[in-house]
C-alpha cells in the first residue's frame, strides 16, 4: 500500500475570497465607521496613496459568535506546569482586576481581537464614496445631449451627393436595366429569327409577296425596339443608393475641475490645508467618475492667476482680495480651452469669506449669469477660524457668504458650506454630494 501524492497547488486560489466578501458585508457598518474615522484622523493622504489600505475595525455585533460559556466567578481549579517554590496551602495574591497574564487563561476566552481588514485602493474608495453622486452627473454624462458622432447605418435612397455609393447604385441600375429590357430583347430575338427565315426563302426564290411585306414590317418593328432599348436610362432616381449615417450621442467623459482659492494674507496654512483636502476629495471623486479629469488651479488676491499645483498650495502672496477676478479667470479659461459641450465643468471655491466691498455683488452676478449655467456643479466652502465654529449655527457669515446665500435657493447646482477643522471636511463633502436619490 503506497501513498498517493496529489499536487493541489494549481487549483484555483482564493477559495476563501467569497467568504471574505461575506465577512466584509457583515461588518459593513463597522468598516464604514472605521474608514470615516481614518479619514478624519489621518487626512486625505491615506486616500490618495494607491497602496492597499489596512482598516482596523472593532469586531462589531455582526461577526460575534456567541456561545454558552462560563463567565468569571465560581470555583475553578486548574493545573499549571513549572512549579518552583509553592507548597500545598500557599496563598498567591490574586492579580488585581488587570486580569492580564496567562495565569487565569480560560481555554476559550481568547478575547475577540480587533480585525484588520486589508483592502485594495478600489475597495477602500468604494466605501469612501459610497452613496455619493454628483448631481446631474448621470444625466449629462450619459445622455451627453450636445455632442454626436456619425456612425454608418446601412443605405438609404436619398442623401447628399457626397454620400453616393457608386457601386451599389450601379448594381441597382444594372438590375433595373436587365429587367426593363428583357421583354424587348425577347421580341427582338424572335423578329430576327423570323427575318432570317424570310431572307432564306427569298434566296431560295420561294418568297411570296406576303413575305416581302412582312419583312418590311419586321424591320420597322426592329427599329422601334432599338429605340425603346436606347430609351432605358443608365440611371434612374430609384437606382441611387446613399451611405446612411446616424447621429449618436457621445457621452461626455471628460471633466475639468476648477480649484479657486483666496491666497491673500488672511489665508494661513491651516486654511489652505483645509481647502486642499476638500479639493483632493473632489478630484478623487471626479477621477473615478470620468475617463479623463483635468484640474485647473486659480489663485487670487486682488487679481487672479492660473498656477500649477505647488504654487497654488505653497507660495505666499500678499495683497487685497477681489474674488470676482478668480471667477472671471475661470470663465476666460473655459472659453479658451474647455467648451461646455465637451467638458463637464466643476467649480470649487475656497475662501475665508473676506472680500473687497462691492465685489461680492459682482461675484454673485458672475455666477448666476455666466458660470452656473455652464457648470455641472459649483461648490463654495468658507473656512472659518476654529473659534468661529459657533458661528456656523448662525446664518450671517462673511460678506461673500451672505451674498452667495441668495444663489442657493435658485440653483440646484450650487452649494455652500462652512468648515473650521479637518474633521468637518469629510462630512461636508458627503453632504455636498449626497446622492441625489436621497433628496
Amino acid at each position, binding site marked *: 500500500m503506497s501513498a498517493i501524492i*496529489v499536487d493541489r497547488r494549481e487549483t484555483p486560489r482564493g477559495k*476563501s475570497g467569497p467568504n471574505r466578501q461575506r*465577512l466584509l458585508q457583515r461588518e459593513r457598518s463597522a468598516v464604514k465607521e472605521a474608514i470615516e474615522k481614518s479619514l478624519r484622523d489621518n487626512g486625505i493622504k491615506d486616500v490618495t496613496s494607491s497602496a492597499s489600505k489596512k482598516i482596523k475595525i472593532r469586531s462589531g455585533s455582526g461577526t460575534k459568535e456567541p456561545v454558552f460559556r462560563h463567565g468569571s466567578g465560581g470555583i475553578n481549579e486548574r493545573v499549571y506546569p513549572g512549579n518552583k517554590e509553592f507548597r500545598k496551602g500557599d496563598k498567591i495574591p490574586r492579580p488585581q482586576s488587570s486580569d492580564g497574564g496567562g495565569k487565569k487563561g480560560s481555554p476559550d476566552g481568547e478575547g475577540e481581537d480587533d480585525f484588520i481588514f486589508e483592502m485594495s485602493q478600489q475597495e477602500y474608495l468604494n466605501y469612501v464614496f459610497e452613496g455619493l453622486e454628483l448631481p446631474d452627473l448621470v444625466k449629462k454624462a450619459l445622455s451627453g445631449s450636445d455632442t454626436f458622432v456619425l456612425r454608418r447605418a446601412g443605405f438609404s435612397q436619398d442623401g447628399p451627393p457626397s454620400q453616393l455609393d457608386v457601386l451599389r447604385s450601379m448594381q441597382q441600375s444594372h438590375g433595373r436595366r436587365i429587367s426593363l429590357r428583357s421583354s424587348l430583347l425577347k421580341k427582338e430575338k424572335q423578329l430576327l429569327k423570323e427575318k432570317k427565315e424570310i431572307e432564306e426563302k427569298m434566296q431560295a426564290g420561294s418568297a411570296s409577296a406576303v413575305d416581302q411585306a412582312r419583312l418590311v414590317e419586321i424591320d420597322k418593328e426592329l427599329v422601334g425596339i432599338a429605340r425603346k432599348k436606347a430609351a432605358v436610362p443608365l440611371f434612374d432616381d430609384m437606382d441611387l443608393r446613399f451611405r446612411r449615417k446616424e447621429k449618436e450621442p457621445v457621452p461626455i467623459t471628460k471633466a475639468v475641475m476648477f480649484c479657486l482659492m483666496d491666497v491673500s494674507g488672511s489665508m494661513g496654512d491651516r486654511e489652505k490645508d483645509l481647502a486642499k483636502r476638500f479639493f483632493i476629495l473632489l478630484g478623487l471623486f471626479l477621477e473615478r467618475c470620468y475617463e479623463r479629469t483635468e484640474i485647473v488651479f486659480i489663485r487670487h488676491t486682488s487679481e487672479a492667476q492660473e498656477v500649477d499645483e505647488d504654487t497654488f498650495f505653497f507660495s505666499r502672496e500678499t495683497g487685497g482680495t477681489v474674488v470676482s477676478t478668480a471667477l472671471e479667470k475661470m470663465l476666460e479659461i473655459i472659453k479658451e480651452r474647455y467648451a461646455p459641450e465637451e467638458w463637464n465643468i466643476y467649480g470649487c471655491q475656497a475662501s475665508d469669506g473676506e472680500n473687497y466691498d462691492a465685489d461680492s455683488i459682482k461675484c454673485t452676478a458672475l455666477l448666476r449669469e455666466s458660470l452656473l449655467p455652464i457648470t455641472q456643479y459649483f461648490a463654495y466652502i468658507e473656512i472659518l477660524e476654529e473659534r468661529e465654529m459657533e458661528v456656523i449655527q448662525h446664518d450671517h457669515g462673511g460678506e461673500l457668504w451672505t451674498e452667495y446665500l441668495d444663489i442657493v435657493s435658485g440653483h440646484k447646482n450650487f452649494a455652500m458650506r462652512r468648515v473650521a477643522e479637518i474633521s468637518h471636511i469629510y462630512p461636508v463633502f458627503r453632504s455636498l454630494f449626497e446622492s441625489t436619490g436621497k433628496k
Partner: protein
Amino acid sequence: MAMEKQVEPLFTKAEWDFEKIKEVCDACEEIAVKELGLDYFPIQIEIVTSEQMIDAYASTGLPIYYAHWSLGKRFMETAKPYQKGKVHLAYELVINSNPCLVYCMEQNSMTMQAIVIAHAGFGHNAFFKNNHLFRQWTSPDSIIDYMVFARKLLAEYEEKYGVAEVEKVIDACHTLRNHGVDRYSHPPELSVEKEKERRGDRAEQRLREITELYSILPRNIKEDEKGKKDRFPKDPQENILYFIEKFAPELPIWKREVIRIVRKISQYFYPQMQTKVLNEGFATFVHYYTMNRLHEERLITDGSMQEFLLSHTNVVFQPGFDDPRFHGINPYALGFNMFMDIKRICEAPTEEDKEWFPDIAGSDWKKTVLDVVKNYRDESGIRQFLSPALMRDMRLFSMLDDEKDSENFLVTGIHNDDDYHKVRKALADQFDVGLQIPLIEVVNVNRHGDRTLTLHHSVVNNKQLDTNETIEVLDLIESLWEFPVQLVSVHPDGRESMTYGSKKVRDQGVSSDNSNWG
C-alpha cells in the same frame, strides 16, 4: 575492522520532489507497519501552497465547507499572525477521511515533509482509524461526500431563499454547535444517499407529525396544572439542535435541513475536541520514533536530524506558568510526554511505577501504547496514565480560584506523594469537555400556551454563565424556535439562581419572582 554497510540517505538537500516524498513515505511506512504495528487508512498526500493551507485551516480542517462569513473571519485570524511572521503555520493538517488526506506545504523542507508524513500520515491517521471515539462518531468513508452534498444543498437554499435568510439560520446553528451532539448515544453512519431519500418522501410526513404534536388541545387544564405530567420532552434533552430540528413548531423544512447539516458536522468534530492531548501526543510520539529510527538506519543525514530536533523541541515546548510565553498546557507536550512515559514504564519501571501501574509496568510498550490509542480520550487517559514521575518532571501543581476569596488563589496540590492523585484528578477534569462546556438541556416546551422553550443550565462549582453572551445565544435560538426561549440556572440542590430570557421573553416582561433578565 568490520566494514559497515554503506546506506545512501533518502535525501541530502532541503529541496523536496515527488520522488523523494514517495521514498520517504515508503520508509516511514516500513517502520509504522513492521516496528509500531500501526493500522491506518490509505494515505493521500496533498501538496498545497501556504494560502491553501490557511484556507484549509479556516474551514476547521475540512477540505470542503459551505460558504459562510465565519470562515472568512477564521481565515483572517489565521492569516494575520502568519503574514506578520509571528507564528509558523502549523506544518501539518490532516483530515479524518478515507483515504486520509495529509497536507504538505510546498515551502516545507524535505526534512519537514518527512516529519509531516510520519506525524500526520501515520500518527494521526492511525489514531483516527483506531480510537473508539472516532470509530463511533465519525464516518471517514463518507465525510467528503457529505460535505459536497451539504455545500450544494446550502447553495441551493441561498438561491431560493436568499443568502441573508440562510445565513441567519446558520448563525443560529453555529452558536449551538457544542449543543448539537448526543454525548451518550452513537449517531448512525453518514450517507449521502440516505440523506437524499430522507429529504424526499418523509419530509412532509415529519412536518405533519410536528403539527399534530402541537395541535393536541389540553384536555383538562386542571390535570395540566397538577404538575409535570404534560412535560415535553419527558426527559431533559441535551442535544438542543436536534430538539429544535425535530420539534420546532413552525420551522419550514429547509431550515430543519440546515440545522441537520450543522449538527452532523459538529458531531464529526466532537471526538477531536476530546482527544487533543492523546491524538497530538501520539502523532508526535510516532514522528519522534520514526525520525530517530530513520537516523539510526542512516536514511536521513545528521544535518536533517538536527533540523528535526530543533522543530520537535519547539513543538513540545512547555513554558512554565510564570513564563510570559505561557498559554496554558501545551497538548503536544503533555501528550508526547505521556506516551514517552508509558513507554518508559513498560520498558524500565521503577518501584513507584510498579506500585502505580501494576498492569502495564514491564509490559510490551507497543501493545500498551496502541491500547491507549484505542480506548481512551484525554480525560480518561490522564486519569489513568499520568504518572508521578511525569508530574514531577513537569512540576505540575493545582491551584484553586474561588470567587469567595477575592484576595488569593490557593495552591491545592503539588508534585509530591500526598497530592499526586489530587493533581491528576484536577488535570483530568480540566480536559473533560463535559465539564468545560456548560451542560444545558431542554426541559420543557409550553405546548398548549405560548410555546416557550425552557432550558436548564446545571450549575457546577458555582460557575454561572456569561450573562451578555447567554442572552445573545438565546436570541439566536429564538430566531430558530420562533417562540420565546428562557434559560434557568439550576444548582445541584435544586435552587434556581439565574433566569435569562430571549427577546420575546424580555419584551413581554413575563414575570416570575426570581426573574433576572440579564
